[in-house]
């Protein structure tokens, strides 16, 4: 139930409101993408915005992702702040060249004379029963690319604030939205609150026995795992990483030094996923505090399978608990 001055919103609504706010605040903010106009996007995240801000600011693009990102680069060079929607995670790859060779590098190439204030919104992750290419988790590839920043929201309130902060950032931001959560849980938004800075992680549940790191769709699973573990007398600390590049590791190190155990969970498959980097850094920084290796929980190292077995492919509460147990028993 919303209390006074707050409203209860879904993630989809939070993002929609955040986009609207950003467009109101700055006339240079543009939305671009396939079907973002009249349709409001296939997930309705841009619902109503073309009607209110016009076709020049909410731009339905031809069906070509490289073209969308490439023209957004040009608009950014002209002083605009384009917010690009990629329709599904698996369709970002035609734009990959523009993203890693242009968007990511233009500030560096120009020694800071050019800015690239672009946000690339990507609904990501699985669990929605979709066909191939609609459930990917491409974050590691972008986090591996210097010049890009990468964030993932996990809840409606963060969605509202983080999208505005990403748009306000002068750096290009890959903005990952857990599509499975778009219309799932609601939360209370207080628009008068002051959000934390964008590039920070956050302890979302305090604990003492082990640290569970998650972002995007896995935060919910991690919290559920902590809840379940509590009934067995295990106290898990859960950190919502929120930012994947740069990583905000200080709260992570602090936590792991206390607990001695760490588990990283993500929907992306394990091999060379975010977990590899996070585990490596924790090991480098907390070597003598670790009572077990940092364990990684993710999808298996196969292509995304047919949706009827996606829940086997994706990590879940049980796989997180299993890893926590393996860590505690190591």
């Amino acid at each position, binding site marked *: 139930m919303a209390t006074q001055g707050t409203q209860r919103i879904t993630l989809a609504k939070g993002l929609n409101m955040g986009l609207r706010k950003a467009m109101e605040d700055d006339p240079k903010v543009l939305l671009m993408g396939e079907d973002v106009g009249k349709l409001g996007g*296939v997930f309705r995240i841009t619902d109503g915005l073309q009607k209110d801000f016009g076709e020049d600011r909410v731009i339905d693009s031809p069906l070509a992702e490289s073209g969308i990102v490439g023209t957004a680069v040009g608009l950014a060079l002209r002083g605009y702040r384009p917010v690009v929607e990629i329709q599904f995670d*698996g369709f970002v790859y035609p734009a990959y060249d523009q993203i890693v060779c242009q968007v990511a590098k233009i500030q560096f190439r120009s020694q800071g004379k050019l800015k690239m204030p672009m946000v690339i919104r990507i609904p990501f992750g699985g669990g929605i029963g979709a066909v191939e290419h609609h459930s990917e988790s491409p974050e590691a590839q972008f986090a591996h690319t210097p010049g890009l920043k990468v964030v993932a929201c996990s809840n409606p309130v963060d969605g509202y604030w983080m999208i505005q902060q990403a748009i306000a950032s002068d750096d290009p931001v890959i903005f990952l939205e857990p599509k499975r959560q778009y219309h799932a849980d609601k939360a209370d938004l207080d628009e008068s609150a002051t959000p934390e800075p964008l590039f920070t992680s956050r302890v979302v549940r305090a604990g003492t026995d082990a640290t569970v790191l998650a972002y995007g769709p896995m935060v919910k699973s991690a919290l559920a795992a902590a809840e379940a573990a509590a009934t067995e007398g295990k106290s898990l600390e859960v950190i919502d990483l929120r930012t994947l590049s740069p990583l905000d590791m200080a709260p992570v190190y602090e936590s792991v030094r206390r607990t001695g155990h760490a588990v990283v969970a993500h929907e992306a498959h394990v091999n060379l996923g975010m977990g590899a980097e996070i585990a490596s850094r924790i090991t480098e920084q907390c070597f003598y505090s670790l009572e077990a290796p940092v364990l990684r929980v993710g999808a298996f190292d196969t292509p995304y399978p047919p949706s009827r077995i996606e829940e086997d492919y994706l990590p879940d509460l049980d796989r997180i608990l299993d890893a926590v147990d393996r860590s505690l028993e190591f």
Partner: protein
Amino acid sequence: MSTQSSGETPGFGPDLVEVFGPSQQDGGPELVQLLTPEGERVEHPDFSFDLGDDAILGFYRDMVLTRRIDTEATALQRHGELGIWAQLLGQEAAQIGAGRSLRPQDFVFPTYREHGVAWCKGVDPLDLLGLFRGVDQGSWDPADNNFGLYTIVIGAQTLHATGYAMGLQRDGVVGTGDPDRDAAVIAHFGDGASSQGDVNESFIFAASYNAPVVFFCQNNQWAISEPIERQTRIPLYQRALGFGFPGVRVDGNDVLATYAVTQAALQRARDGQGPTLVEAYTYRMGAHTTTDDPTRYRLSDDLERWKLKDPIARVKAYLRRNGVADDSFFADVQQEADDLGHRLREGCKALPDPQPLSMFDHVYSEMTEELVAQRDGFAAYLESFEGAH
């Protein structure tokens, strides 16, 4: 702001480019038509339908059965048996016309909507459902019917088609003059796909190597919510002119014309005369997929107008008017459709879920040690639960 002023700048021709779209025109004078919406056969100077009424009876049956596959699958999705379905309602003539013009040795690269072409190529429609049900990602063997797997990334398959056609050239099965040997490739794609880099690159490669490929674009006027005007401001078939090969616009709701034009284009390819772009001018009468809501972006008037051009109705009218078919024929086809629908319904529900451990298969031609370890670990993990219950 993006309006186009008229006038003429010397050397550049007229400034007002032709803006072409569903709301303005009915396909224009370029449209090749051999059977009117009223079911009357008409002549065209360049293309003619050279098969008899038997073939038309067959086309009718194909279209009715294809439509039944479509409505059945749509219903299965509504009942939760499929995760999603890409409807072809309204595009039956385009697909049957194209599909029936193929020889067995011709190879098809489809999108995700080519159910009618699959039908013509002999793919069991039940096999098409697995992908949409989420039990596989395309279960048929492309080698069985020379019908490739559905491709979801827009446009990717047009390059595969071009490469395959380059393979045909290397295999010496182009331009030999032997009708059982000479082969071609058909690449299906949509109006929206025409904007993808890959599709335009496939035009470049096909032209450069003179590859035996027919680019078959079903311009159904929409790419989800985006009208054709967003992708091109001139008739789409003219895109080919920029790449140096012929383009032609055919009435995609006219199965005779689509057959005649595609067949001629395929023959050009088989003969070694290179690529052709066929734009089948049609209309997506249903939603983009079962999760789409077209009322948000298009006028019902449009749909009503296109209903008058229904691809099946016009053939039926022709068959009736000319006494080619009687009630019993139509009843038989109806019965066959009902039987097919029943088979699909039952068959779909019986499609088994894949085994979880199957996800480790076929990532590589042989399972790597890494994957063997993951599979075995997961198997043990799953067993630990079985023990627990």
